[in-house]
């Protein structure tokens, strides 16, 4: 069997380092020995094609998962999932989770003194369509304090998890909001040295997809790793 065509490797600065001391939790959890170079084998270029049968359309509307509507500013978040060559990634699973409008997660570990919302779980999922599009309806998440350093606050964000066509295209990231004053001082956001790459994580207000008299819209396109041009050397 010929060696499979691998995936492109990240250019320097376009991904965060494992150890990023301004984010204190990374210090004891980042590997200290060099990573071993791995040629992409059949084990990596394949991956789960999963979840399709278990995702239903209402999973992408986080405002309709309880008896009443959640408190907060209703927003639409939509975009396309693409590869590095701009080709759409169709029929792939997108999972999201987030805090409520008060900046509180529906999770036992979250001790922030802000109200839970009985009408908001904060979890959603969608499958991209034939041209890589997805859409969620949700409420705008609140900012919240954390104990990383004195007076630390996380910028408003929505967690995104994607699979793509292989185990190498797996991505967990966070979507931020254009103009958030907390962004420059958020060490998680700032962990990506390359500004062009960092800006990829910022969604933009989009009047075109805004739903009149209902919800403002934010656009967030996600770019997964692309295929290498030639088979990886072994």
């Amino acid at each position, binding site marked *: *069997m010929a060696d*499979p065509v691998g995936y492109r490797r990240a*250019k320097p600065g*376009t*991904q*965060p380092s494992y150890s990023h001391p301004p*984010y204190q939790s*990374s*210090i*004891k*959890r*980042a*590997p*200290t020995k060099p*990573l*071993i*170079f*791995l*040629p*992409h*084998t*059949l*084990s*990596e270029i*394949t*991956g*789960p*094609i*999963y*979840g399709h049968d*278990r995702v239903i359309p209402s999973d992408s509307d986080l405002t309709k998962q309880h008896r009443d509507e959640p408190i907060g500013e209703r927003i639409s978040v939509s975009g396309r999932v*693409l*590869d*590095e060559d701009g080709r759409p990634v169709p029929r792939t699973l997108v*999972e999201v*989770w987030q805090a409520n409008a008060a900046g509180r*997660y529906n*999770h036992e*570990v*979250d001790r922030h003194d802000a109200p839970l919302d009985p009408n908001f*779980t*904060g979890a959603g999922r969608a499958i991209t369509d034939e041209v890589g599009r997805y859409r969620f309806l949700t409420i705008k998440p609140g900012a919240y304090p954390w104990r990383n350093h004195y007076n630390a606050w996380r910028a408003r964000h929505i*967690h995104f*998890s994607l699979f793509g066509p*292989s185990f*190498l295209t*797996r991505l*967990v*990231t*966070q979507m931020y909001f254009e103009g958030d004053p907390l962004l420059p001082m958020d060490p*998680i956001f700032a962990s990506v040295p390359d500004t062009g*790459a960092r800006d*990829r*994580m910022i969604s933009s207000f989009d009047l075109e997809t805004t739903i009149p008299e209902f919800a403002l819209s934010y656009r967030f396109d*996600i*770019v*997964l790793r*692309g295929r290498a041009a030639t088979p*990886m050397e*072994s």
Partner: protein
Amino acid sequence: MALIPTPSQTVGPFLHIGLAWLTTTELATDASAGERIVVAGSVLDGDGKPIPDALLELWQANAHGKYAHPEDAQDKPIDPGFTGFGRIPTDKDGHFRFVTIRPGATPGPGGTRQAPHIVVAVFMRGMLRHLYTRMYFSDEAANAADPILGRIRESARRDTLIAKRAADAAEYRWDIIMQGENETVFFDC
């Protein structure tokens, strides 16, 4: 024009809200071909403390060494009872446990053959970008010729990828150690 890929960010401490629905600790069904095995272990930080907010994702071939994916062109049977994907969050004590079938051997680079293994992606609070590692099996002669294990020069480091089989049961022990003397090998891929 090439687009810059979206950078990775941590799953954070509240990962379960969005990811728990797809938790899969039993990869095999009664209909899956192959030897049914149990794998258990802990995820430990640089102080040797258990990590209660980690998540492992697994990807493996079936007992015949075939991946349930369109790019696996090998003439081997697909197992309808086996997808090869697992998702396992660690518990409050940093432990994980999963049930699967022992995978078959798969093709490696340059016409080599890879010993049976499971590809593992590791996510956790405090980790800005997920890590890849692999789990191999202690009772497997093919490990000696595995092209990926062969890239790891020190045998002590190689051993961090090898799950130890119990003497009296189809149970393996494998820990993921983030730092220190017994730091697990992670891959640049």
